Every structure is written in structure tokens, then in C-alpha cells.
């Protein structure tokens, strides 16, 4: 289960700068750690995260092994039209996750 919590304001006015947050539950395994038997634990981090607003990409992040477990990101975009804010991410193991919320924009 790839789980995330997202915070997108349900309502905004056109031209507002909207504050968006996402927290993803992920161990962000660095690849530098060993298990109890001395074997290397394979690197597994969320390497790519995209946010689309009504289909158009508004934010993209490439994460690496320097990011702590359960990455938490916050960014802003300009509210134009009502619609969907979609997040998609993928980790090194190929597991994909997604989350979406809708935003209503008034004039």
C-alpha cells in the first residue's frame, strides 16, 4: 500500500497563490545500510514525483537518497480554473502511487 496524505485547499479565488502539501509514507532506503546479517539493503527511494493541475504539470521533484524517510513536500501554484490536482510518484522498486484532490476556483 503506497499511502500519502495531501493538503489542497478545497476553495480558492482566481489568481490566488495556492499552498499544496504532500506527505508520502515511504522508508526511503538509502542503499548504504546493512541488515542484521551484513547484507546490503538495496536502495529504494521515491525518485520522481509529479503534480498536475488540470492535466498540466505544475511541479516535479527528483528525490535522492539524501531525503529522509516519509518525504514531505510543500509548494505553491497559481489558481486559474476549478479542477483536479493530481499527484503521481514512483520508487526505485517500480511501485507507483497516486493521490488526487479537487479545487473549486471562484472569480
Amino acid at each position, binding site marked *: *500500500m503506497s*499511502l*500519502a*496524505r495531501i*493538503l489542497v485547499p478545497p476553495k480558492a479565488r482566481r489568481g490566488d497563490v495556492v499552498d499544496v*502539501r504532500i*506527505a*508520502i*509514507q515511504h*522508508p*526511503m532506503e538509502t542503499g548504504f545500510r546493512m541488515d542484521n546479517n551484513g547484507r546490503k539493503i538495496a536502495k529504494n527511494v521515491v525518485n520522481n514525483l509529479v503534480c498536475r493541475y488540470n492535466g498540466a504539470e505544475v511541479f516535479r521533484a527528483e528525490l535522492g537518497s539524501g531525503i*529522509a*524517510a*516519509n518525504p*514531505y513536500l510543500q509548494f505553491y501554484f497559481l489558481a486559474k480554473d476549478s479542477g483536479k490536482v493530481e499527484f503521481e510518484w514512483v520508487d526505485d522498486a517500480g511501485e507507483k502511487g497516486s493521490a488526487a484532490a479537487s479545487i473549486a476556483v471562484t472569480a
Partner: protein
Amino acid sequence: MCSITILLAAGASLVHGAQPFRPQPLKSGIEFSSAEVRALQHDDFSSPAMLWATRGEKLWSESAGASGKSCASCHQDARASMKGVTPRYPQIDPGTARLVNIEGRINQCRTRHQQAAALGYESDDLLGLTAYVGMQSRGLPLNVVIDTQNRRHFERGRDMYYTRMGQMDLACTHCHDRNFGRKLLNDTISQGHGNPYPVYRLEWQTMGSLHRRLRACFFGVRAERPAAGSQDLLDLELFLAWRAQGLTVETPGVRK
């Protein structure tokens, strides 16, 4: 003669069972934490512990096991039915007459009523459900009652708390009663209460149960570590819950 013996025995147990020392004033561990950790715990969105609570919320209404029942099938809305549950645990299970904590109770529900496999003690699912159940009691004071049924467990836990152990030859009391508020390396020693558990510990980079934290303390004094969910740790958990009576539930907490 017989009655005198009984009276003597009662007197002796009274002396032995005298109220152990409780730190005054009682302070939750969060009061010994840095401003950043406090801010993280108090912000319901950015607290990483809430990820597990959200997982628990999802699992609550997912059916499991051969019965096809979910937690919600019997307990309905957790926000109403689970309010005030965590402060009463650990408690004696009437069926088996054994001491169970919230984790144990959830697993009992799974095996008895859902006919599903028990969850691993430190698994994300069990931590999530425990956090979600505990969260419904946030702000309510811990309130375990020591009675004839659980007194034996309480006394075992209390004795463990005051017994020196490990290569360091320390008991819990030496740090958490006599030296709280002082520094141990770069950390401030707390009074050792279990009211925020399960917590997201920044050092672990994940959520952990109270038993995991207790095992870390056993490791710290270089003593043999009891297994998570073992009788030793359950008894200690009961004593700690009694000792923290009046502190409010902070689940799911955040610690350094």
C-alpha cells in the same frame, strides 16, 4: 490463629504494596522535547505519525480474514466507539484472564472475530491501527485501575521498574525518577511515560510501539531485551500506565 495469619499477611502486603514514588509534577515527554519536535507533533498535517493513523483509518473499514468482517462491522465508527478505550489499557482480558494491551486486543479481534492472521507486532498495519484507535482518545487522561485481577501484573512491573539490571547496573527509576530534565548525551531525560505511543521517532525514521521503545531502554543499560509483546513488557506497561495516571493521551506522538 488462622485469622491472625491472614491479618499479618494483609499487613505485610500493604507495606510491600506501598505507593511507589511518582514524579511531581507529572510531565509528558513532549515537555522535554525541543520546540521543533513539539511543533511537529501538534501539526496534524505535517506530523509523520499521522501517515500511520491514516493507514489505520483505512484498515478500520477493510474486511479481513475468513469472516469477511472489518473492524467497522462490529465497532462501527471508531471516532465514537474507540473514544476512551486506550486510557483503560493494558487490562485483563476476561476470556483468557491474561493482560492485554491495545496491540494485543487488536490481534485478538483479528484471530477470534475476523478469523484472520495476527499482525506482526512492529508491522505498519498494527502500528497504524493502534495509532488510529489511540487517536480517538487524544486529550483524555490515562486511567488504569489496579484491582485484585491485575495486581500481580502491576507488582511484577513495579518490581522490574525498580530493579537494577544490565552491565550499567541501572534501574528505570535512576533516570526517569531521579534525573529527569537532565541531559544524557544530547538528549533530555524524560519521566518515561507511555502516553504518546505509538510514536514516530525521528531517530528510527518510522513509527514504533511502546515495547520497541522499552527494548531500546533495555539495550541502553546493556540488559537482555524481552521480546515485544512479552509478559515482562506488558507488566511494565501496566505499571507505567498507572504511574502516568492523569497525563493525557497524545497518540500518535512524535519524538526525537
